[in-house]
């Protein structure tokens, strides 16, 4: 089976984009599982990611998600083997795999599958997870190259996302907290002078406006310091409440 090129291209774009602020690992892994199954001619696919302190298991169906979990947590299955060997693992007849993967083979056959194919998820020398394809019949490997490319793009997206998240945490610690605190002090000064009140009272004005308009304190502080119309609204609201 050959997948249409437009779908392949769209999938690469989808998997490469981990920059959205709304990025969620679970949703991303579900997309990866769905597309791998669809493009590589399998009936279902499970994904496992174990990246530092993050462990995530997803699947194109609930049943294969549980199979992937069994493989991961039982440390016995094709993905576990792939993790230790670093290469792909295939088994076209799970009836013959009872010895190597007793629990996994039985559960997988009960779910109606007889063949599996695992592609390790690799970033440089580090293995951060695996995609397991499940099928009732033998899985054709003529699309294996495509599968490896998809998984490589996904792995790189996951690692970049992690790096960005860590850097963002660091940046937040370093600067944003401080910046916000100072912006609030500046706004207190501006309001104290505009309202002719002590700075403590100016803070009350800032806080009650932010609260009643369901806004972040620092956003209101910025508006006050920048002299935006919203800053005037804070002044007006305080005077009206007197």
């Amino acid at each position: 089976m050959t997948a249409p090129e437009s779908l392949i291209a769209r999938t690469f774009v989808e998997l490469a984009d981990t920059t959205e602020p709304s990025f969620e690992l679970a949703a991303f892994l579900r997309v990866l599982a769905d597309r791998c199954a669809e493009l590589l001619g399998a009936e279902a696919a499970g994904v496992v990611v174990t990246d530092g302190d993050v462990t995530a298991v997803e699947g194109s169906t609930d049943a294969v998600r549980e199979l992937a979990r069994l493989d991961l947590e039982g440390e016995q299955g094709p993905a576990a083997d792939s993790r230790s060997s670093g290469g792909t693992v295939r088994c076209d007849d799970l009836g013959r795999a009872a010895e190597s993967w007793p629990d996994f083979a039985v559960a997988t056959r009960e779910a109606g599958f007889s063949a599996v194919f695992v592609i390790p998820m690799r970033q440089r020398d580090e293995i951060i997870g695996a995609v397991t394809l499940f099928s009732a019949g033998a899985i054709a490997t003529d699309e294996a190259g495509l599968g490896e490319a998809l998984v490589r793009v996904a792995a790189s997206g996951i690692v970049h996302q992690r790096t960005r998240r860590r850097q963002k945490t660091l940046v937040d610690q370093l600067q944003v907290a401080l910046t916000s605190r100072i912006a609030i002090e500046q706004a207190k000064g501006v309001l104290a002078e505009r309202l002719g009140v002590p700075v403590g009272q100016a803070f009350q004005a800032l806080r009650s406006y932010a609260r009643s308009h369901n806004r972040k304190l620092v956003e209101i502080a910025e508006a006050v310091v920048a002299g935006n119309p919203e800053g005037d609204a804070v002044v007006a609201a305080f005077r009206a409440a007197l």
Partner: protein
Amino acid sequence: MNESGAARVWSSIAGLARRDGTAASLRHVCEACARGLPVAGASVVLSSTVSTPDLAFATDSLAEELVELQFTCGEGPALDAVVGFEPVLAADLDSPESLTRWPVYTAAAVGAGARSQFAIPLRVGAVRLGALDLHRRRPGELPAGVLAEAVIYADAALAVVLNARAGTAGTWELPEDEFLDRGAELHQAAGMVSVQLGVPVAEAMVRLRGHAYANDCRLGDVANAVVRRRLRFSPAGGVSWEEV
């Protein structure tokens, strides 16, 4: 923030200023930064207003070219940092993410020889003054410790800019710089003085500093007097004291 990192940054800048026998300037900040961090070059852009930043100093021709390209294209990490809240980190300018974010600038920057770029805003609270722009010729993230030091260099650049505008350059010791003291009162006072004078808060910071220098008193004491309403700045020039 790591104290020894801060001390190292400030003393490297002071060392270059001493070598030249002048007050610490943006040139010293940029040069110390390019030497002290694993980057190929550094520049500082300043915004008189947010929409029109100017190149204030660049350590090398590539740093200068990158700033020019960003101005020409109207986009880029440093321009984002000037108006943004936080550092803008482009670990690979030749990546789909960078291309999506800065479609015109990235190709030009890579063509000029840059592969990664990290821009740190010069900010004090809600006041934005510009950005410290770092680049490398190879892709890769900036390690956390390096990023932390880059933020300290950005603070130093900010202190130098405020000193220069207040006409107090060379009279204030950088490592003890009071304006970056995190005390609340200074920032409250800057907000109050901006209203008294009808000027932006950045300008009020400069005026407070200038006043302290001209009267040979501590900036913290000036700020305290403003917040206690014992000292007012007048738009006509000069200040008024109220006896308590």
